[in-house]
């Protein structure tokens, strides 16, 4: 009863003290933000959320106790009047009291440690089931490369994975690599973040319970355009996911814009970009084979419209200053042709 009361008090304080926390602590309410960590939709994010509620309860209880003592002492024992009166009784310490406020915190620490250790093990040491989707995520300055090694698909920035019904789970396991500096993969509603570090492969997993598009972004400072290294996760039905995979495996259908293709392959574009089925086999930039199947360009910095594409090819710095893609100095007709070529890459 007592502990119930305390937990109730703590929750009440959550709603009072943490402005907006009442709404935040309401699970599955992403209205505040599409990246609310308190609106989890996948097992790792959910177990983190459960632990965080316990931690919030305990810390709020501690806050109430100490804050009440502080306010009481500051008001009750404030000096009244200006006249100099006798010095108060000098107290030098109390073994019992000091023992109490040593032992009780030790017990709290033990509880918090055990609860954390359990969640750490459950997330980090989870086994990978045989049906899990495997994706290799490679961080680049300033975009994401996704490789599905067993499915033969390479894409960028927008990750597609199947929804994972808790009764028939299809989790996705990510292997995290980096091509240059440190990055961090963070989609708050699906899982905590894990860093992508060169020479230091990491892994993480998620099993989204609901379909939808989930936003995230790089969470480890990686250079000039760290801010616009955005990412999206598209969670689809297994059927839709399979159709997407099927489409992505096809080489590019390149017969719509021969002029643009010629310019593309004549300039330095091909040093960095791949269009499968053509002469373009560069690896530094995103694979463009199915560029038009993506909703955004420049790692989420702009929506994928013909105007934005043209602007991006003309001068990447206008959309994403500091991006690693150079402006190629194309003439207006050349720009139109290359944009038209891009638009055929469906």
């Amino acid at each position: 009863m007592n502990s119930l009361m305390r937990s109730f008090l703590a929750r009440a304080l959550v709603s009072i003290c943490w402005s907006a926390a009442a709404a935040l602590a309401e699970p599955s309410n992403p209205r505040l933000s599409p990246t609310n960590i308190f609106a989890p939709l996948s097992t790792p994010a959910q177990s983190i959320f459960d632990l965080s509620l316990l931690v919030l309860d305990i810390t709020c209880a501690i806050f109430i106790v100490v804050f009440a003592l502080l306010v009481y002492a500051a008001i009750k024992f404030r000096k009244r009047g200006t006249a100099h009166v006798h010095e108060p009784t000098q107290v030098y310490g109390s073994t019992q009291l000091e023992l109490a406020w040593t032992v009780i915190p030790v017990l709290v620490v033990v509880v918090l440690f055990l609860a954390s250790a359990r969640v750490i093990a459950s997330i980090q040491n989870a086994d990978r089931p045989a049906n899990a989707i495997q994706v290799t995520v490679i961080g680049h300055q300033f975009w994401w490369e996704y490789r599905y090694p067993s499915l033969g698909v390479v894409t960028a920035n927008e990750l597609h994975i199947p929804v994972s019904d808790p009764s028939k789970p299809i989790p996705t396991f990510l292997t995290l690599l980096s091509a240059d500096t440190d990055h961090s993969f963070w989609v708050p509603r699906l899982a905590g973040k894990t860093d992508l570090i060169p020479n230091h492969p990491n892994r993480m997993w998620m099993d989204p319970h609901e379909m939808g598009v989930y936003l995230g972004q790089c969470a480890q400072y990686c250079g000039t355009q760290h801010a616009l290294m955005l990412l999206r996760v598209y969670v689809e039905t297994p059927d839709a996911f399979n159709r997407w995979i099927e489409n992505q495996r096809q080489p590019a259908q390149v017969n719509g814009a021969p002029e643009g293709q010629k310019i593309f392959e004549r300039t330095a574009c091909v040093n960095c970009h791949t269009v499968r089925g053509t002469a373009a086999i560069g690896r530094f930039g995103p694979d463009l084979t199915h560029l038009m199947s993506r909703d955004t360009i420049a790692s989420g910095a702009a929506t994928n419209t013909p105007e934005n594409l043209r602007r991006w090819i003309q001068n990447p710095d206008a959309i994403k200053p500091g991006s690693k893609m150079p402006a190629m100095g194309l003439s207006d007709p050349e720009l139109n042709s290359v944009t038209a070529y891009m638009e055929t890459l469906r």
Partner: protein
Amino acid sequence: MPTESVVKPAAELGTRSPLVERLHSWVTTVDHKRLGLLYIFYALIFLLFGGIEATIMRIQLIRPLNSFVSPQVFNRMFTMHGTTMIFFFAMPIMFGFANYLVPLMIGARDMAFPRLNAFSFWMTAFGGLLLYFSFVGGDGLYGAGSAPDVGWFAYAPLTSKTFSQGHSTDFWILALLVSGFGSVGTAINIIATIICMRCKGMSLGKMPLLAWLTLTMAGLVILAVSPLTAAQLMLLVDRYLGGHFFDTQAGGSAVMWMHFFWVFGHPEVYVLVLPAFAFASEIIPVFSRKAIFGYPIMVAATVCIGFIGMSVWAHHMFTVGMTSTANSFFVLSTMAIAVPTGIKIFNWLATMWGGQIEFRTPMLFCVAFLFQFLIAGLTGIMMGAAPFDWQLSASYFVVAHFHYVIVGGILFTLFAAVYYWFPKMSGKMYSETLGKLHFWLFVIGFHLTFDFMHIPGILGMPRRIYTYEPGRGWDIWNLIVTIGVFFQAAGLLVFIANLFRSYFRGRVAGSDPWDAWTLEWSTTSPPPAYNFAVIPGVKSRRPLWDLKHPEDPDWHYE
């Protein structure tokens, strides 16, 4: 062990010497009080620099897709802000107070090594100049970059030649290397002073708590700064001699840099917070009119924080992919440090309990510190739970948390200390009205900025981004956070105005304006070069209490 400055302070000679001579006497001084004041002045100037950089960042983030500064400039601003505030504001000002106060409080005439003291100060000062020279010289031969833009913890491989051309990173390395030598020199000096130069009767158990906390801080400086210095040297080898310690393209390890940096970086937090605790432990008893509660356990908790503080560094690295065992260990050590810290908070409360609390400006800042440090500790516990940290780490929640520690905890007690010891250092009383105005402006600004900064973190906003798109639910919080900055800036201006006004026009303070109990108040304000005409002897932790209450001295009870 009396020492003399080369040039006697002019005031003692009864005449005012020419300006150039007075300046010369400050540059060549080896007096611990003058060096302490130099540290403090120097640090306050860097506080302004760091504050301006913070303001630029906050203006950029006041609304989504703002274009007040370019990403390149923004990245330089947060790098310079962090580096400046930690290495050239917080550490030097703590050394300044340690320099000024420790010899006075233990009844000594100077630090153990006055020349080393001057050397250390000028190394630190030179380091700060090197860092800021990067704005001019950072372009180097490459014409790339000006001030460093690698973040204050400068993760590899961003610092390698490949990703950081020009010399900006070199200035960053050299600045920290040079000021690091200064820090270690001062730390050695503090330890030697406290161990060897206490006055008669002052056993270790009778030192003021400030001396204990400063001693522990100095020990941590030696343990923490040395690995940082080593890492900076290794980075220089990488950049100029073809080494591959952190050069991942040649098989080096980025994670090793993280370990090197945080094995410095976390103890550094305690290097800064222990002096803050020290100020609170001196100020709270005096304004509550009571002896510090539980002196022995306060000392034990301090030393305990020192030891445990050396074993928690990898809680900054919960997201880098350590094993579950390692993560669990660092959860335990991080949580464990809450115990001695909690003891301290309870003991300060118990000191106030039953007292007659007088809310002068220093005490106001200390009470706000207690409240804010409590919250900082509790958000620290949240991030100490590693899984919770997987969400919170590198988000604005972390930024809010550590500013709660560094501003809400450390800067607030620093203001308290400046007001509390200003009468001793200048001989003049500060203006209580301006002091309280400063306090309220700063409290309002602080809470507007850093309370609301937690929320975008919870809503998924990473730190170190120069812009964000609308529709993520972050806009309103960033607006409030930026508004708070202007209150803080106003408070800071009132603070500086108060210092100048009081120095020139304040009323004479007298040697003991607070009716306090430690030895620095037994000499004149400001103290003479030799501190004490006769080296005092003490019988208890509060020698001036014994003097004022001969009928009921402390040594009856200790």
